[in-house]
């Protein structure tokens, strides 16, 4: 088996393991904490008659032992049959397909904006040297800390208050098409992520900046921006790339908050509403999809890291030549 094939098999195995664990946890958490009949009969506190309750039990095999129902559920997932929503009475696949693209777009744009903010910060930092550099560094450090601890529900609410209620520049909700509707949700999601990305990349930048290759480049007469773009930024980006996988997962969970706050359709809101309604098939479907997305993104960031850092490639290709790689 080639190295690539081994790598693919390992990733696939990990993905299956993750899906199985997540589906199991969600299944038992939902089933042991409440009655799925509620979702079928129009919410908790149903006053439906005996025959109605029996019809629902029969339709979804709810009188079978829980372990058997669990196995049925696993079989459905394995055969990619996500079933019908208890509450909405529509195929789960349709519900997910309708909402997934919007959430993915929101998360991807937010991640891009967070990166843009972090890189801009690095450029500003690199361009300012000496005493100014120290002041700029201190200010940025402060901003990064504030940004990274800012709760999204709070940040979003403040944005609505200022930009929508106060200034009337943007719509309060993000349901409609158009770029204006995306501005506040993206800012809300991007700012805390940008704080984290900027923090780790600036630390790495500081290290790279003092490394011999940067000193040499300067000695050859390269300007600060050139040193940054040609030499140090690549180093500074490595931890940020690794962090982006985590950030994407964070964005998907942040989407729950943002989609509810800005009344934006998406997977997060679907998941939240389904969980409250104990709509088991929808919750399992949504969580499995999110878990798979996460595996895909982590795999992607691994690949990007390999592309950005030849040292890793060297290590992956041949263990015996691992001593060669020294910063270029």
């Amino acid at each position: 088996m080639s190295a690539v094939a081994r790598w693919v098999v390992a990733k696939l195995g990990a993905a299956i393991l993750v899906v199985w664990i997540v589906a199991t946890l969600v299944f038992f958490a939902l089933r042991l904490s409440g009655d799925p009949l509620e979702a079928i009969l129009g919410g908790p506190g149903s006053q439906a008659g005996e025959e109605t309750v029996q019809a629902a039990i029969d339709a979804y095999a709810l009188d079978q032992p829980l372990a058997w129902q669990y196995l049925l559920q696993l079989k459905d997932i394995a055969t990619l049959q996500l079933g019908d929503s208890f509450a909405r009475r529509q195929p789960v696949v349709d519900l997910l397909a309708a909402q997934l693209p919007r959430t993915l777009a929101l998360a991807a744009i937010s991640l891009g904006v967070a990166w843009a903010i972090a890189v801009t910060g690095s450029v500003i930092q690199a361009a300012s040297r000496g005493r100014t550099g120290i002041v700029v560094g201190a200010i940025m450090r402060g901003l990064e800390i504030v940004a990274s601890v800012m709760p999204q529900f709070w940040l979003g609410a403040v944005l609505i208050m200022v930009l929508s209620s106060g200034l009337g520049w943007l719509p309060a909700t993000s349901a409609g098409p158009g770029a204006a509707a995306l501005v506040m949700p993206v800012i809300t999601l991007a700012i805390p992520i940008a704080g984290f990305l900027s923090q780790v990349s600036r630390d790495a930048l500081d290290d790279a900046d003092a490394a011999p290759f940067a000193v040499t480049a300067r000695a050859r007469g390269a300007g600060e921006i050139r040193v940054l773009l040609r030499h140090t930024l690549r180093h500074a980006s490595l931890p940020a790339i690794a962090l982006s996988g985590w950030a994407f997962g964070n964005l998907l969970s942040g989407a729950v908050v943002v989609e509810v706050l800005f009344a934006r359709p998406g997977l997060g809101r679907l998941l939240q509403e389904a969980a409250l309604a104990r709509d088991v098939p929808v919750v399992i479907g949504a969580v499995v999809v999110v878990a798979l997305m996460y595996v895909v993104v982590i795999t992607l960031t691994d690949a990007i890291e390999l592309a950005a850092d030849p040292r890793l490639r060297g290590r992956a290709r041949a263990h015996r030549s691992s001593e060669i790689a020294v910063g270029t």
Partner: protein
Amino acid sequence: MRSLRRALPVAALASAALLISACSAGADAPGGDAGAPDEGGTLVYATGDAEPTCLDPHVGGNYPQGLISTQYLEPLFGRDSSGEIVPWLAESGDVSDDGLTWTITLRDDISFTDGTPFDAEAVKANIEHLQDPDTASSTGYLSVKEVSDVEVIDETHVALHLESPKSSLLEVLSQQWSAMQSPAGIERGMEANCQAPIGTGPFIVESWTPQQSVTMIRNDDYVPTNPELDHDGGALVDALEWRFIPDAATRQAALASGEVNVIDNPLPTDIAAAEDQGLTHIDAPRPAAANRIELNSSQAPFDDRDVREAFIRAADPGPGIETLFAGTTARSFSVLSSAEPFALSDEELFRTDVDEANELLDDAGWTTRDDDGVRTKDGERLTVRFPVSTNQSTVAEQSLFEQIQANTAEVGFDVELQPSDLSTWYGALASYEYEAVSAPYTTVGPDVLRILYHSDGTVPAPSGYFANNAQLTDSDLDRLLTDALATTDPDERADLYTQAQRIVLDSLTVLPLYDQQNHFLTHGVEGVTTLHTISTPTFVNAALTD
């Protein structure tokens, strides 16, 4: 008689034709009556209630479905502001002397928006749809539970044969959950019908984008039946966009900025500030029961009436209601909503008296106190488990419960507020793990007293649900409520329901708080009114002003 009946359809057709021409003439006339408002345009409504999972209110049957279906489905009967039954799709309803047969006369000039005629067969199909287990109806099913047979007499007459008398039948049929929809629509099957039920209302469901909005367009062939209608013809606006905005602050911002025209579930502080912002406030308390705290009389410590009285004397919710609700609602001293004509109020019974509370508890044997100041008796603490539904209790109401917790702690109660999601909350009730609870119940009419306080209500439904949270079992009360259900004489009903309320009030198992809150704020629109059934808004008279 027979010949007259045959002549009716002809007369109906003629009058329908007249009406239609009148409608179109009215719609064509520019300006309208008020002058200022524009005709046409799209009215945007934003709801904070959960998005319905099915737009057919027969399926399940919750308030969000009632809200939206008011725009496209219509019931057989309505109610006026004094609580009197008024005709809607039906012209009249008459009960036999034994109370077992209701003969309902239907209007003969109405069609569903798919062209299916509204007739006796349609009524039969609707009631059978509600009773069909596959419909999984919960609320609408309760309205027609006693109906054993629907007999089609002729096109415009239908007889409902009941297993037991039900004087409240027309009241419960006025609810949106048993509204009429096209039999041909129902025939399409649940999945299609859930997406776009077909009714007779002023709007037609055009499309539903989940989590975003439902788009409804004007029913140009609307036959005026809505008792709220103040003009000829149908709705004035061309379309209705029904948006789902779960967050209250976002909803308010969208309203203030003109993004939407009407919102529901505004925060009390936003209601109080509405006038200064140029917003119009509509206060439409829901009918039937008031919001109230019920004390579980089936187990200690509230199986002792004196302990219940002590709790009520110490709770003192009045000041909290005034401040937390920013003056948007008034304290209630009645089990029934102020929208119910038979409501009996007794302010003196719910007076606050901390000294009396302490004496009552001393006399009841709760004489010792532990280190936390909680009274004890035979080693048991005076604990009150109080599950709070965070779905149903607003933030203001939850704060009110915290004040009651603090007030009753003064006299030695240990109230454990347990905030929980709806499912956990119902679970706690179903397993009797509560001493106090606030459970809203929406229906129409005083028969809610039977649902909430008849001893039958202590028997769990197949889902485990029971409505009698006070666990009242009183044979005199049962008899009064059963008798009230069997008589349609208004005076007799009033008398029986008054006596029944007296018993419920005197049991001190209930602490009334306020009417079930139901507020709307509007912006850039006029003519929005609410129905006197389940207090849902209707936009049949609404016109945009900006």
